[in-house]
């Protein structure tokens, strides 16, 4: 077993080569809706049972189902109203089950990246070839459904195995979201030296931990997200920061919470030095303009 992921070098927050964003923005702000399907009767995985209750877990299944029937549509409208695009963390089987959702995402100019096939099919215990086959199939599905290239990856339920990041790089993925180690993009070291970067995702301002695990009421959620933004906006004057707002339609799309999303987006878009980006745009900009400088600085021992 590994003691550490081994995918990145220590990069102290101060003294880093400066990151700049387009148009003098201090912060790249991106929203990652997790559009998922949890299966009614999924197969077991030795490391994690898909449902806490015996199948059918009606409360768990139907709660998630709410997101695709009701929550997504409400959430997408609020984002569109604020001119904020999504970068969809997509269980790609959604393309087959609910093509209307994917059509709506494309109509709004959203990016689609892969969050695996279903949120109930974990990567735990897969061989490298099995992982590779899923990644390739996911790429084909996203291309077929949207014409987009699959550039980003978040392993379903963040169930990545030891080798997953290496395989992502070998399969030509541009950016991974499986690591939570930074507020800026960073290089990811891979065994074959293929390029892969990490861009910030979040489990701090992610609505699942906030609403489900930390028992946060909607107004506190908005306050936490705004505080996160304010500090990263302030620090971004020195070197460009990234804030990701990961959301789940079955949670944020509920009637009692939807106004909180609007409040956060109103706050963010009320600032002028914000780059409203997608994951792909952030990764590309970082790769094109800053990756080499970061790698050189790491090679010099981060002086």
């Amino acid at each position, binding site marked *: 077993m590994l003691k550490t992921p081994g995918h990145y070098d220590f990069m102290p927050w101060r003294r880093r080569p400066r990151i700049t964003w387009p148009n003098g923005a201090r912060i790249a702000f991106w929203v990652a809706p997790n559009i998922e399907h949890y299966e009614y009767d999924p197969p077991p995985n030795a490391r994690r049972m898909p449902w806490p209750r015996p199948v059918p877990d009606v409360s768990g299944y139907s709660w998630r189902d709410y997101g695709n*029937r009701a929550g997504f549509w409400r959430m997408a409208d609020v984002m569109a109203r604020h001119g904020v695009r999504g970068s969809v963390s997509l269980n790609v089987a959604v393309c087959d089950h609910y093509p209307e959702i994917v059509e709506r995402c494309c109509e709004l100019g959203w990016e689609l990246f892969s969050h695996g096939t279903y949120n109930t099919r974990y990567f735990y215990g897969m061989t490298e070839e099995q992982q590779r086959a899923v990644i390739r199939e996911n790429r084909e599905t996203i291309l077929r459904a949207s014409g987009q290239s699959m550039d980003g990856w978040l392993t379903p339920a963040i169930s990545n195995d030891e080798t997953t990041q290496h395989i992502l790089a070998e399969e030509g993925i541009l950016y991974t979201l499986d690591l939570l180690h930074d507020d800026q993009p960073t290089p990811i070291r891979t065994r074959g030296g293929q390029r892969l970067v990490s861009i910030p995702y979040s489990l701090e301002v992610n609505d699942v931990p906030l609403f489900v695990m930390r028992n946060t009421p909607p107004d506190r959620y908005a306050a936490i997200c705004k505080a996160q933004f304010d500090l990263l906006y302030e620090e971004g004057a020195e070197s460009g920061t990234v804030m990701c707002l990961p959301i789940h339609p079955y949670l944020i799309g509920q009637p009692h919470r939807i106004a909180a999303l609007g409040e956060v987006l109103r706050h963010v878009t009320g600032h002028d030095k914000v780059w409203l980006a997608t994951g792909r745009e952030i990764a590309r900009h970082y790769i094109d303009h800053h990756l080499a400088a970061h790698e050189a600085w790491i090679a010099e021992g981060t002086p």
Partner: protein
Amino acid sequence: MTGLPDDYFVYPKRGRGMDHDRYPYRILPRTKAVQWPGGARIALWVAVHAGHFPMDMPLKPFTAPGGMERPYPSFWDFTQRDYGNRIGIYRLMQAMGSRGVKGTALISAMLAREYPVLMDDIAKAGWEPACAGLDMAHLHHGGIAEADERAWIALATSLLRGRFGDAVQGWHSPAHSESHRTPDIVAGAGYAWTSGWLNDDMPYAFATEAGTLTAMPLPQDLADQRMLHQQNMATEDFVNAVLAAHAALDAEAEATGSGRILTVSVTPWLMGQPHRIRAFGAMLDAILARGSVWSATGSEIMQAWRAQQG
């Protein structure tokens, strides 16, 4: 490394719509518009959980939310919950009745045997009686033998119908938990609506082997039991969340021209506490003050919705 078995990569249900046969996929904003009586934008449905939590209730394969939390015999947990059926529910009746707000009681059917006088008072309050299983010790789930499940539903139904007759039209699976066959047995027992599934804000048709049930929206995420008890939030957080839901649904009804439903899911042993009941009343006042509210029982909402389908 052997990896995962081949069938882990087989997706037999991957295709258009759902991965089961209970209902087709439906998109809320593209759903047929519904008009409530009097042109109300909001149908207010107050669902009151009159639950019975036996002290020896099983805690496996999972503990029902609100189930016994301390070692047997937990007089603490039992009596705290039983308080709701003695005291708290009467405060709710008063707070709702004085404002002309109707209710649906989701009743553990054993209470018809344990507390027949409470059943009389629920009838006098004009609340709709609905069946929430036998009690919280009889959870319907995938590990229950079919014969047992059929017997539980038959007994629960006879207990409540024995007291209320055909007024018992609704079924709520305790803890929002069901087996694969629960809806089939429930429909076979003559129920018209069910509220175990959490996937919509509006009713929809739910297919069973014994005919179609109407699935009624009863959120778990916005329920006092979850927020106040499981999540330890403050009373104000629950009230504010309900009012935020009302504001969002009201705006949606206005924008789409289709009525919406505000379901208020409350628990007598929680919301009926002296320190909370005035906040509950104030919440109802705020809901009513917004206007265009039709207070109705679950069956009344179901009938209004059904009449406008097909």
